[in-house]
């Protein structure tokens, strides 16, 4: 049984916002709603890290727990979706979510929010897979087309991984084994390493004949 997850490798994220743009384009998300966002910490200082955040499709989703009309449900793959026809736009899910995933398109009188919109893991929502109405309300249903979410597929550095939890955890483990981990992964020491066997070549030219006597 697949359990769909996202992993964002903060060592690789370059804050290009490719995932954000891909998601907005693919799902035609309105202005003001950002299903996916890139958060940058320590901007400009050593140790700057970026990470791409959207709905984490929690196992015990707080949004699902607090919804007064119970419009949330989890699919067999672990994707947390909701029914916009049932949603009353109260905003409780938005308060409950630690990642700020549920968003509202409107900011009108008396707190009118409109229907909640959030990352769907590109799995659409209720309504037949790939239908016009599903697209209008929820965006693309890529899982039903045998594809993975567009944000991960578009990630320029493959920092953002999506798919079955075990598979992508394996990929990340492979990656960390090969490159090493830790905070100063891409620092000066890695590029111009002292302790490394492969050190930078000498600046002086090395003559092809050594110690030629004139």
């Amino acid at each position, binding site marked *: 049984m697949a359990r769909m997850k996202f992993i964002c490798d903060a060592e690789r994220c370059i*804050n*290009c*916002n490719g995932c*954000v*743009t891909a998601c*907005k*384009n693919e799902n035609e998300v309105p*202005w003001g709603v*950002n299903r996916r966002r890139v958060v940058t910490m320590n*901007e*400009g*200082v050593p140790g700057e890290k970026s990470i791409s955040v959207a709905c984490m499709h929690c196992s015990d989703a707080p949004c699902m727990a607090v919804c007064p009309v119970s419009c949330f449900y989890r699919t067999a793959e672990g994707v947390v979706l909701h029914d916009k026809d049932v949603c009353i736009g109260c905003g409780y899910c938005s308060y409950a979510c630690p990642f700020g995933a549920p968003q509202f398109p409107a900011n009108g009188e008396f707190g009118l929010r409109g229907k909640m919109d959030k990352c769907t893991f590109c799995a659409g929502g209720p309504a037949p897979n790939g239908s016009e109405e599903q697209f209008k309300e929820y965006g693309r249903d890529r899982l039903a087309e045998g594809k993975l979410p567009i944000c991960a597929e578009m990630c320029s550095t493959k920092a953002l991984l999506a798919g079955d939890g075990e598979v992508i955890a394996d990929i990340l483990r492979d990656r960390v084994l090969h490159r090493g981990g830790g905070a100063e992964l891409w620092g000066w020491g890695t590029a111009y390493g002292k302790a490394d066997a492969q050190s930078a*070549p000498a*600046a*002086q*030219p*090395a*003559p*092809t*004949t050594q*110690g*030629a006597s*004139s």
Partner: protein
Amino acid sequence: MLLKKLGWWNELTDAEKKAADGKNWKTDPSGGIIRVVMKNHSCHPFGNARARAVVWNFPDPIPQHREPLYSVRPDMVVKYPTYDDKKTFWRLPTLYKTVQDQNIDIVKKFPLILTSGRLVEYEGGGDETRSNPWLAELQQFAFVQVNPAVANDRNIREGDDVWVSTPTGARIKVRARITEAVDRSTVFIPFHFAGHWQGKDLRQYYPEGAAPIVLGEAVNTATTYGYDAVTMMQETKTTVCQLERA
């Protein structure tokens, strides 16, 4: 140094010895080290940055540092002056020394270095990418990245509008982004924006429906005179400026 160790130093002529003293393969302006190593001893170093050639239309045989025309360091201007004026360069008179001498004390009025650069979200002049809703939402206004210390000295806070003034007399209004990404002597403004002219919004002058979603100040309204003789590029990348809170 290496030449002395190898015992080839005395094969240089006296003039070459004077120029090459303390220098290496890359920085010897006389070319003597290259001549001795390659011609006399048939040693041909290979690898990155080893090749040497005489480029007849470059002003210096080996690149020399020359201070920019508008510089915040008057002492460096004296030590590393720029080229003499060219009477005709591609059939136009191109000024170097005159402008630099006129502006040697420009740091008193404009103490900050302004550099301009690209944004990930936008491309080129910006009109096409600023009309794209997905990209426009990511960068909604032209900004100036300011170091916290610099901002503090000028009473500028995050999100404040700032007047950036430069030696051309231009004053552009951009929004401040306080960040440690620039140091205390530099500010950064992105290009790609257009549609505001020195604080005035020009949206009503665009044809109906043709204005991009996001408008902003163009940084080149403020950049200054200069033409690089080697790369044949205009000096619009960088200049000096002063900030004040709007």
